[in-house]
């Protein structure tokens, strides 16, 4: 995988287009949070869709002139051409904004950013990159930025161009329970087709809670997966399709796939630390030459609902009290479990 990204990067030139695999956390102001996440996934050994990043520096150039400079057009076209070499055709890609402020807690304006799925051909890629930037200049966003005391030169919008995974199933992994914060569980949401159905809340996904230690399923729930998004014919756009009742009633992923996702969660926690939220997809892409594979699409720190967290019983103070016997005596003496009195 990494080779493909490097190959794409060789044609980039300058700081306008970056190699995804080189995106480190310190580059967040240049490439945005999403691209940093992809870089982390790559370095953690995960299969990530082949991609490149059009940087925030390029965005600022664009904003000055309100048009794509020729040099930038050439760089983007060249990088896209490298992606197309994967398959020898115009590969369908996803074009996504990767904001340099998107994941900060204060300014969660994720909705203001654009995602285009199933974009094919150099001209269309260029047009979509421009649209991502135009959206960021939208008066709404401007008002938002003003409201959050963000000046026009703060941050910027990088754009990721990545091959589109035509997902048979996709969803989200939480490496700990997003509501209870339970660190022993991996929670996996999954539905048919592209992950947009899960992320966008179109469907109630299948849900699996898996114990990390025993690898046994703690709980599962069959979703109501009435809609799926798939790549449209000709690789242009994605299409919402109804899911037939039999498939709605069937699990969207198999046991071995569930195991692979659990393995992915464990591997990522080992490399990137606890508490991750990972988007994933299982499907084909130009880089797999028609073979199905599991892709990691995005990773970010999990957001645990703070209200829920405060409702959680506080762990008892065993270890800080006199000793374990004292702790037990306290419990038998009627202190509520988990009050912390020792």
């Amino acid at each position: 995988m990494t080779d493909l990204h490097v190959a794409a990067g060789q044609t980039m030139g300058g700081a306008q287009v970056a190699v995804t695999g080189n995106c480190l956390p310190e580059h967040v102001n240049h490439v945005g949070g999403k691209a940093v996440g992809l870089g982390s996934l790559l370095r953690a050994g995960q299969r990530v869709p082949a991609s490149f990043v059009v940087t925030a520096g390029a965005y600022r150039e664009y904003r000055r002139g309100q048009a794509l400079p020729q040099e930038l057009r050439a760089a983007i076209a060249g990088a896209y051409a490298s992606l197309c070499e994967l398959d020898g055709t115009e590969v369908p890609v996803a074009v996504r904004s990767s904001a340099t402020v998107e994941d900060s807690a204060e300014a969660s304006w994720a909705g203001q950013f654009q995602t285009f799925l199933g974009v094919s051909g150099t001209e269309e890629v260029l047009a979509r990159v421009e649209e991502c930037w135009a959206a960021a200049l939208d008066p709404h966003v401007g008002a938002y930025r003003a409201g959050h005391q963000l000046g026009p030169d703060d941050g910027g919008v990088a754009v990721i161009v990545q091959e589109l995974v035509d997902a048979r199933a996709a969803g989200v992994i939480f490496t700990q329970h997003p509501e209870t914060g339970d660190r022993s569980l991996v929670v996996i949401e999954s539905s048919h087709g592209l992950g947009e159905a899960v992320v966008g809340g179109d469907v109630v996904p299948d849900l699996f809670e898996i114990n990390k230690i025993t690898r046994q399923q703690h709980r599962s729930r069959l979703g109501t997966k009435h809609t799926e998004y798939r790549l449209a014919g000709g690789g242009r756009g994605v299409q919402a399709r109804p899911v037939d009742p039999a498939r709605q009633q069937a699990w969207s992923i198999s046991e071995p796939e569930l195991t692979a996702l659990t393995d992915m969660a464990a591997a990522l926690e080992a490399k990137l630390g606890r508490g991750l939220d990972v988007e994933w997809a299982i499907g084909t892409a130009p880089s797999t030459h028609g073979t199905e594979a599991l892709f990691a699409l995005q990773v970010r720190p999990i957001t645990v609902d703070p209200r829920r967290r405060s409702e959680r019983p506080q762990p008892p103070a065993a270890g800080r009290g006199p000793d374990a016997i004292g702790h037990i005596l306290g419990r038998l003496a009627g202190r509520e479990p988990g009050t912390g009195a020792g």
Partner: protein
Amino acid sequence: MDQGRRSFRNPFDIETPPGAEGWETMYPAYLQFSEEMRERDEQKLWFFDQMHNPEPLYPFDLMMPESWLVSLNQYTTRVWNLPTALGIEHRIVNGYLYLSPNVIDDPAAMAEREPVFAERARHYFENWDEIYANWVDKATDCIERLKAIGFEPLPDREPLDTVLHARGTTTAFDLLASYSRYLENMHEMAYYHFEMLNLAYGAYLTFLEFCRSHFPAITDDLVARMVAGIDVILYRPDAELRRLAVRAVELGVGGALTSGAAPDATTAELGTTEAGRQWLAELEEVKDPWFYYTTGSGYCHAKRAWIDDPRPPFAALADYVRRVERGEDLVRSLDKLRAERDRIADGYRSLLDGDEVTGFDDLLALSRQVFPFVENHNFYVEHWHHSIFFNKARELGAVLVAAGLLEQDDDIYFLHRYEVYQALYEAEARWALGVPTRSEYIWREEVARRRQIYAAFEKWNPPPALGVPPDKVTEPITVTLFGINTDTIERWLAAEAEGSPDGRLLGLAASPGVAEGVARVVHQVEELDQLEDGEILVCPLTAPSWSIVFARIAAAVSDGGGIMSHAAIVSREYGLPAVVATGVGTRVLRTGDRLRVDGGTGVVTVLERAAAPAGEAAGA
């Protein structure tokens, strides 16, 4: 009384089932609901002790609950001075035992007891291993003394020795004296039973709650697996059967064990060959003590030990021999168990940070230290001692039959232990008189009446609870020993209020996995042979000795069972889904129902109802 507070049926509104009229005289009056105590009793929660006494109490067997009424409660109330609890009360309703815990919630009273409790309990925790080693000696000695007590019918004529040794007293005197020693011995063992149990469960509960507060989704099963002993005496009987099955195959005599013949015929056949005799000799070697193992809770005489009824171990042997012949490795590797236990503990520890790790390690170490007592006391007390105890009762029955007071040996179980003392005295009197007495009519008539009442009790379905539940149940003994907590009460209330409108039954998730299959409702171990392969066992409660059927079933559902439930442990060992503590499973589910059992969530779903058996009363 709180308006709108949900409650169970008032214990004073429970009707006597037809045919059981006049049952009250079978049991001591102090154990029954009465008008004098109404105001207090009807405001309390009374839960059915399904775990220990799933069937109606025989008056003689009442000795068991009456023993722990004293021993367990003394430890709580007077010895440890537990700051949060007084004794657990007993009431008998239509032959079934109901229990009611008593909590101390007055802060001043709790504070007053706490230092007393802390000093005493700490002494036991700090000297645990030494005290436990002594405990084993005390328990074993108590069992040896029980073995030495014997009851024989009174002879026609006092032996000459009495005269030649100028004893003064006679065999009739010995009979009553032995009976007193016999009762005392039972009472003594009951003390040992509870000597360390409260504290051991307290340590375990604290660790369990620590785990739950950090890992809300952790199951009781996983906590138990981190703590469980490796070489546990309680599982030795089963381990010995596995070993004997391997030996049978090695000696080439497996065929005799899988022939399906009764144990007697199997033994006779084995006796015809040299190899067979060799195997029988090895079997004999393990019988004492490992066949002093009952098919029940040890609290009821009707559940015979393997030593008396070899059908369960022989059925298990047949199954094990078949598995050995299929190439399965039956002998559990202790190293593997140890590795598994450490793998789980290491896994959870790796998810904790800083102080949390210390807390986890300290509590885990202490739980592991106390757990051998929790697991092993069960063998010494309920299996080994109580099996012998109930066998001696049978000898006593024979004495009373020989004296003409009873019709058959097992009539004795219809008499309360102090009534037995009275009957023995009357037997002594008759023997002394040498002429007919009224005793020959009184006892037989009373037993005949009680047999009818008992039969009526068996047709009655005891509700899981009566009276008014407290808002919260956190009292450690109720939670650990009886598996009853706030959630259990909520489930029972819901089941009572709604029945199961959506065909779902909620219990505790005891062993993960999902299975679908046909239900087989089994009340007694004797009915286990009706089970067909792949069925779902629905039962009041399973004991370790039921493990013989776990190789054949798809899942297990039990009415009772809690944190320490054996059904849960055995199911996990066999990798079967299990749901315990449904409260009502055996009454709501029918043999033939198609079920889905989800041992991960504790939900039992009725997929398809079996046709109601002809003549079954509606709403039973």
